């Protein structure tokens, strides 16, 4: 698999960002419907059936693929909503459906044999046995890898499986195993698996107090900022907490993922596609990030060295702190 060119998979939260990502050089874009069937169910984001059909036409005209994320877990007695989303994606001519729930995978495998199935990161399949189960049961062709594996582990995994793998390279970073984290519903009642949201905005408050501003989620203080300090979004797993007599960013610092420096390593590990996170991001951001990663991936494919890749991707940090996450073994 290492001889094929790596595919760059880019976020499309809206029809406008879909066009932007395609024009900036995305090999594929991924998007979802405007409901709880996808894991980025935020107000103002996502696609109607008509918008998806139009988006697929645009992407195909420009040589890009469209992958539709139907990757939450279907609600009991309401599975038809998820099935209909899959039917619509297939009717629109999407190239693949990204799913995690057995009910959705089973429906697509039985009713839409022409469409590729990709296993969502929300399914958290990290072993050859788990991936083999999804491949055999539903004909899954690609697995989006959980963001907890090191490059060495990814290489070993790729040697043991015969489906493609897709790895996140840039954007938000979940430190918990995705699809198996209920922190958000514990605090707010809304979760990624059930509602397609994590740490939902309607539960966030910023409270100005005597000497600092508290960022709270559902009343729980997630972080506190001194006057003049940039205020962050209170995502649960990036909060500052007290434990064992210490105050710290216990789970993860407020950082985002940038594995730009590991593109060559991921290619050598047998990864087929690189994914940029950020369906909640605007057109300008998507254009800039996709353009830079397009250049970087092309440079890696042409045998460019690490210094050249670093130079291409310099400036993709927005002044925020970044990490290569679990790809580097010492992250654990």
């Amino acid at each position, binding site marked *: 698999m290492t001889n094929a060119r790596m595919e760059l998979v880019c976020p499309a939260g809206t029809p406008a960002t879909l066009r932007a990502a395609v024009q900036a050089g995305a090999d594929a874009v991924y998007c979802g419907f405007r409901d709880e069937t996808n894991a980025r169910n935020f107000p103002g984001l996502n696609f109607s059936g008509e918008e998806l059909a139009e988006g697929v036409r645009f992407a195909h005209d420009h040589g890009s693929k469209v992958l539709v994320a139907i990757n939450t877990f279907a609600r009991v007695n309401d599975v038809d909503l998820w099935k209909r989303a899959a039917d619509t994606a297939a009717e629109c001519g999407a190239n693949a459906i990204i799913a995690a729930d057995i009910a959705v995978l089973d429906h697509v495998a039985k009713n839409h044999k022409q469409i590729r199935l990709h296993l969502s990161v929300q399914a958290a*399949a990290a072993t050859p046995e788990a991936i083999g*189960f999804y491949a055999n049961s539903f004909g899954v062709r690609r697995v989006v890898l959980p963001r907890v594996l090191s490059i060495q582990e990814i290489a070993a995994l790729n040697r043991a499986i015969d489906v493609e793998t897709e790895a996140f390279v840039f954007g938000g970073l979940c430190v918990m195993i995705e699809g198996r984290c209920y922190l958000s519903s514990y605090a707010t009642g809304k979760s990624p698996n059930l509602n397609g949201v994590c740490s939902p905005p309607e539960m966030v408050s910023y409270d100005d107090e005597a000497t600092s501003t508290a960022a709270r989620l559902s009343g729980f203080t997630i972080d506190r900022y001194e006057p003049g300090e940039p205020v962050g979004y209170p995502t649960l797993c990036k909060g*500052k907490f*007290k*434990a064992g007599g210490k105050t710290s960013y216990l*789970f*993860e610092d407020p950082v985002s993922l940038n594995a730009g420096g590991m593109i060559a390593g991921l290619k050598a590990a047998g990864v087929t596609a690189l994914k940029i996170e950020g369906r909640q991001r605007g057109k300008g951001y998507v254009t800039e990030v996709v353009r830079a990663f397009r250049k970087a991936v092309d440079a890696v494919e042409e045998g460019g060295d690490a210094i050249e890749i670093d130079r291409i991707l310099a400036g993709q940090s927005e002044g925020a702190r970044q990490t290569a996450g679990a790809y580097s073994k010492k992250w654990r």
Partner: protein
Amino acid sequence: MPGIALTLGPVFFHWSPELLSDFYRRIADEAPIDRVHVGEVVCGKRMPFSDPVWPEIIERLERAGKEVVLSTLAAPATVRERRSIEDLCADERLVEINDVTALRPRSGRPFVTGPFLNVYNEISAQFLIQRGARTICPPVELSLAAIGDMARACPEAEFEIFAFGRLPLALSGRCYHARIHGLHKDSCQFICERDPDGLAVDTLDDQQFLAINGVQTLSNQVQAFCPVPADLTSRGVQRIRLSPHTCDMVEVAKTYKALVDGKEDPKAARFVLSCLDLPGTLVEGYAHAKPGWQATASV
């Protein structure tokens, strides 16, 4: 009307072999529980410590008439961890699956799906039942109503609700016990053993919030869902799961037994539980489709 059975879930924490032996000896001799899960589910690195004591514990429990279920790892990664799952799946006893990794080796023979396996709807449940699922304990974030809807659609299997203990909320590739002590997972010194109920995580404003247990994050609060038996039987939910802590688990089991037998009402049961040496306050929000931390006892 059939009664409601009690299950003792697997121990999530890194207990010493001595603590495990003493704990299960008491469960075998004194706890009115008919099914007991054994085995490590959170961290494969702990297995060399507990592995030697399981055979004796299992024998003791079975001699006391308990049905023993072998629980398997929730996030296997290494070759050794994957092999442990395969070995356990070959056993004649009932096995609890906590990761899809175990599905193929166990397919066609009876198993329990644990709360780490994402079973959210009747279609997924039926798929797993066709492959051998006999008892389904869905993820903790599902309400009693949602579990009941699944149970009604799948009369072939038994449904179980996570009723007591700190709620298992998340797993990671990173070990937080190691991180907070300035160590890495690969050289963790098994420091999680210091916190046999998990290490409390409070907010900057000292609100009790979460707890860490190696790679696992739990609630700080203790789930103590105390329904009247008819709430469960009318929905087809046939089992209650109690999750082990260092508090008096025999007393917890006796309290739930009295509750499901209709000998004690929910208010009295909750009072008894609140008097025990628990690591957090009592909550049951999830059972009522509310945020998990809420104590919606009056519903």
